[in-house]
């Protein structure tokens, strides 16, 4: 791509403005990222874990005569495989009245939200007209436009 072409694309991008729905999607993605355990994929997804697990039961046989055969991790995974959303739904049916998980959530703050520059972290008084991101100075706005502004898939 020649530099003239890339400039044209850049100018076209500058005129694009994210609508409210896209901004909210972006905000939600940012919140989800804060909950993630890993950003990358499992480097050895094929690694068979069970072979490396210490042979706990072999080492620690006790005097008790076993009434039932132990079932192992697989059994528990299969039996208790509900995800968080399912458990929450179940809980709402089970424990509909407060106090419960939902009622315990701290309510929104009464203090006004503070705003920080997305680039350098200083206090911010300005909002990017294209995407709604906060910035603090012309310099940081420039960095923002060159790196993140509309380049994220929103």
């Amino acid at each position, binding site marked *: 791509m020649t530099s003239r072409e890339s400039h044209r694309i850049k100018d076209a991008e500058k005129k694009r403005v994210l609508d409210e729905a896209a901004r909210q999607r972006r905000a939600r993605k940012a919140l989800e990222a804060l909950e993630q355990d890993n950003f990358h994929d499992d480097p050895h997804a094929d690694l068979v874990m069970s072979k490396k697990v210490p042979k706990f039961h072999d080492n620690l046989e006790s005097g008790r005569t076993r009434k039932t055969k132990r079932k192992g991790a697989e059994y528990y995974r299969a039996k208790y495989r509900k995800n968080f959303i399912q458990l929450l739904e179940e809980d709402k049916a089970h424990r509909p009245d407060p106090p419960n998980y939902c009622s*315990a959530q701290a309510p929104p703050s009464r203090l006004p939200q503070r705003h920080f520059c997305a680039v350098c972290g200083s206090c911010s008084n300005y909002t990017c007209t294209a995407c709604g991101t906060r910035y603090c100075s012309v310099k940081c706005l420039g960095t923002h436009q060159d790196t993140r502004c509309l380049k994220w898939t929103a």
Partner: protein
Amino acid sequence: MNNICILDNGAYTAKVGLASQEAPQLIPNCIMKAKSERRRAFIGDQIKECRDASGLFYLLPFQRGYLLNWDTQKTVWDHIFSPDCCGINLSEKTLIITEPHFNFHSIQEALTEIFFEEYECDALFRTTAADLSALHHLKSNTVPADCCIIVDMGYSFTHIVPYVKGEKIKNAIRRIDVGGKVLTNHLKEIISYRHLNMMDESYVVNQIKEDVCFVSSDFQRDMKTQKLRYPENTIIQEYVLPDFTTVNRGYVKKPEGPAPEQQTIKLNNERFTVPELLFNPSDVGIQQMGVSEAIMNALDSCPPPVHHVLLENIVVTGGCALIPGMGERLQTELRALAPDDMEVKVIITEDPVAFPWQGGRVLCQSTDFSEMILTREEYEEEGVGASIEKFDP
């Protein structure tokens, strides 16, 4: 006491040991896979055997603070109780285990089943870390109080739990969805944008957080200071990243020292804007009160005659309680929010991570402990539902 095992089963760190022990062992409650090691995974404390911790991949039993991945948890527990780790044979022992507040029934059933069936426990006592902390605080003879507020700042979230005359006020419990995990992820995001991509380096970034982050005692002042140039800028630090050949753990470079061979990054306002999320979750768009505001909000749900006792007994526990400046900031903010005629006392105990576990030891000494537990006989008669009747009536 050596037939009672206490397991404070944190989402990031399991604190485990016999009640006869002075202190618990702290074991990472996860399985980790390293890019450098193709042949094996690292379970719990085995991570110390890993020579190159770059790009570690985590398998965690907990999601959003609740135990959801049972095969991971079972694998980690098997290791924890094995002779390679703690060497505690749970067979014919009583187990005290912690769970999160408002834990889900099916998780509680799984816990009961797994410990009676797989680990052959003789008896079970299910509780929360905050309950154990409250007991520990209220029974310690230096505090003649029967009311307290436990602020448990863990990995997945922060809970504020008031106790009045030893009883938990359930409708006053407040949860803030900010804990150590959100802080690490936020720092990871900032470093990756401002300095170099460390999105795959939770393990290293968590250590950076532990090494450099602090709670600001005056946010506006520190915001001004971080804009100055060194040496007027007393906040900026240069951090030496581990290369896993000569440096295995990163560290803060001494300002006058020679330039190290390893890569460094400059950390400035992120040192305090990251822990700030505990006080202002809305800084990253989490629409919840910060911890000080939420403590006052929880107080509103408690009987007014005990407000003054509660405010004098605010105990902060969990990993985030270790962030320097935490106690001071909480004290200042609560002082400003509380009524003028009431004292405010924020207590960060000597070991805020092991404090609940130590509370487990106090619990064992209660005269009625043997009546509180769920015995194998009760379990075999009534099944998994017995634990719900016993502990969550």
